[in-house]
């Protein structure tokens, strides 16, 4: 029983971080209908930005954190302007492939700039594990969860109440209507990419703080797909719920099944759940069902 509780708690903690990264994905998908296969790489680059500012430049954590957000926003802006803007109106496969190509470029560049060596951050939080009742949580995991949840809440509030957020939702709802209400639809695309990149980068910093960073860190981004499909591609609440479900499923399945098959269940389980969900509810738990007209 203790093991189960332990697994559940760490599942929730990891799930919170997944929720934040998935949010980075959903923000972009909601506003631009672009499925961003490079989310994982945005995350990885974000972690490297943090490493650069904090370890290489020796800045304190908070300014580094802010600089990471700024640089990631610039990266998102640049990517949208330089590449995705040309892809407006192209078929799905082209857009999917362009983001896959982008992820390859970002990964190669990261290897060139920061080398393939494993790197880790200095301790940001008190080292002592956090104890809740009988359960012990690694401090990095606990504080990572707290930061991720704070970020998710900030993004959700921003989306709900800030002028930019409302404009973004309007653009997502109906581009033509938003356009005629005086919303600059194009700049909304840019904002969505910047915000998506920021969310992913924050997730990357947290993940990097838990387990260290490498250019292949972006492959964690693949787990975003079970998360966002579970919740429905265009739902922010869905991303959060999906994040927790995937975190729980992979921890519990990994904890109980790994000894029997020799590891790797953690990476597999979310995708098995994904397939099952797709059979039962093809548009996810909270997704908007497409109604097509000819």
């Amino acid at each position, binding site marked *: 029983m203790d093991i189960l509780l332990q697994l559940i708690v760490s599942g929730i903690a990891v799930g919170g971080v997944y929720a934040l990264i998935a949010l980075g994905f959903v923000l972009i998908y909601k506003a631009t209908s672009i499925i961003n296969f490079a989310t994982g790489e945005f995350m990885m680059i974000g972690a490297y930005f943090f490493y650069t500012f904090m370890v290489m430049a020796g800045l304190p954590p908070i300014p580094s954190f802010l600089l990471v957000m700024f640089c990631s926003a610039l990266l998102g802006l640049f990517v949208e302007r330089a*590449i995705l803007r040309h892809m407006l109106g192209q078929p799905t496969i082209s857009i999917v492939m*362009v983001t896959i190509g*982008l992820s390859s470029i970002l990964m190669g560049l990261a290897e060139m700039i920061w080398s393939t060596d494993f790197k880790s951050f200095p301790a940001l939080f008190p080292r002592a594990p956090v104890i809740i009742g009988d359960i012990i949580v690694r401090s990095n995991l606990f504080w990572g969860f707290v930061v991720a949840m704070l970020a998710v809440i900030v993004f959700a509030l921003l989306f709900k109440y800030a002028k930019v957020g409302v404009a973004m939702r309007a653009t997502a709802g109906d581009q033509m209507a938003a356009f005629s209400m005086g919303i600059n639809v194009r700049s909304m695309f840019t904002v969505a990419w910047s915000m998506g990149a920021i969310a992913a980068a924050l997730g990357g910093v947290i993940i990097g703080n838990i387990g260290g960073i490498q250019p292949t860190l972006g492959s964690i981004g693949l787990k975003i797909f079970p998360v966002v499909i579970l919740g429905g591609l265009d739902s922010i609440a869905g991303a959060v719920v999906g994040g927790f479900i995937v975190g729980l499923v992979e921890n519990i399945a990994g904890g109980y099944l790994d000894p029997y098959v*020799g590891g*790797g269940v953690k990476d597999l389980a979310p995708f098995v759940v994904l397939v099952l969900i797709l059979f039962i509810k093809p548009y996810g738990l909270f997704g908007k069902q497409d109604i097509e007209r000819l």
Partner: protein
Amino acid sequence: MRMGDFKQTYAADEAVFRSGTVRFWLVVLLLAMAAFPFMVGPYLLYMANLTGVAIIAAVGLNILTGAAGQISLGHAAFVGIGAYTSAILTTKLGLPFLVCLPLSGLAAAFFGIIVGAPSMRMKGLYLCIATLAAQVIFDFIFVHWTSVTGGIRGINVPSAELFGYKLDTEFKMYFVTIPIMIAAITAARNLFRTRVGRAFIAIRDRDISAELMGINLFQYKLYAFAASSFYAGVAGCLQVYLLRIVTPEHFPLHESIRYLAMIIVGGLGSVLGSIFGAIFMTMVPEALQSGLALFQGMDDKLMSYLFPLQTVVFGLLIVVFLVFEPHGLAEMWRRVKNYFRLWPFEH
């Protein structure tokens, strides 16, 4: 400038090779391909064989993604299923090459139908991610079902035998790979002229309209998955006999992406495009690698910058083609041909 090219029957207009010029150059190409192995060394033959396999797989993916419009991120997994099927049938049951070849294709097609089954309820991005799940799950099975697949160490396979003749060199394999490749290309080219192939294209262009015209969407999507993974399975079987070993490392997600990149760079929905794309995406990394080999040993620091360049170039190729030439190499080829068709006149 080409002249006197008039068609008097529909059959002549619909022919695969429409004019004498095309037929002439095709014969020249075939002769050159037949003479090729006698003129080059084993390395180039090895590359030619690998390219042949890549062409078969890419043509298969183009049936599903290019023609029927269903994006698959799991093509490498189907190549893997074909490869493992033939490796297991050869080593455990001792079946001959000629039996393994169609069986690998059929095994892959069978799993293709299973993976395609969700297409009954979903399409587009959701289906694309379902195929991604298939890729991850099959990858896991290849690695972890040790008793059958040999785990990460894989299975060593003896060289193929055809009519008592051992195919133990690249030279001999060439005469198996290339004819199969030509057969595969011919079959695909003709598939698009049949009822089934036209149904695929109708589904890609507008699925709802296709359904209204009496095409059973689910059935034809499954056909597309089956046909595409059959090609993948055959390619996998050939790859096993070329490399004589099969390990999970040959079929990661990255390989699926490489196949997608081939048909993107080559040209979606065009058989010729898949051929160009497969050649291009096999040759460019190889050329880069030999280019980098020139710098080898000069400076370790320089190498650590240059080595990741391959990853960057791979991504750049995809992005640049999509942004500047969305119809790929096939379209460039068509423009060049058109230019010379009218040459020396401009219009």
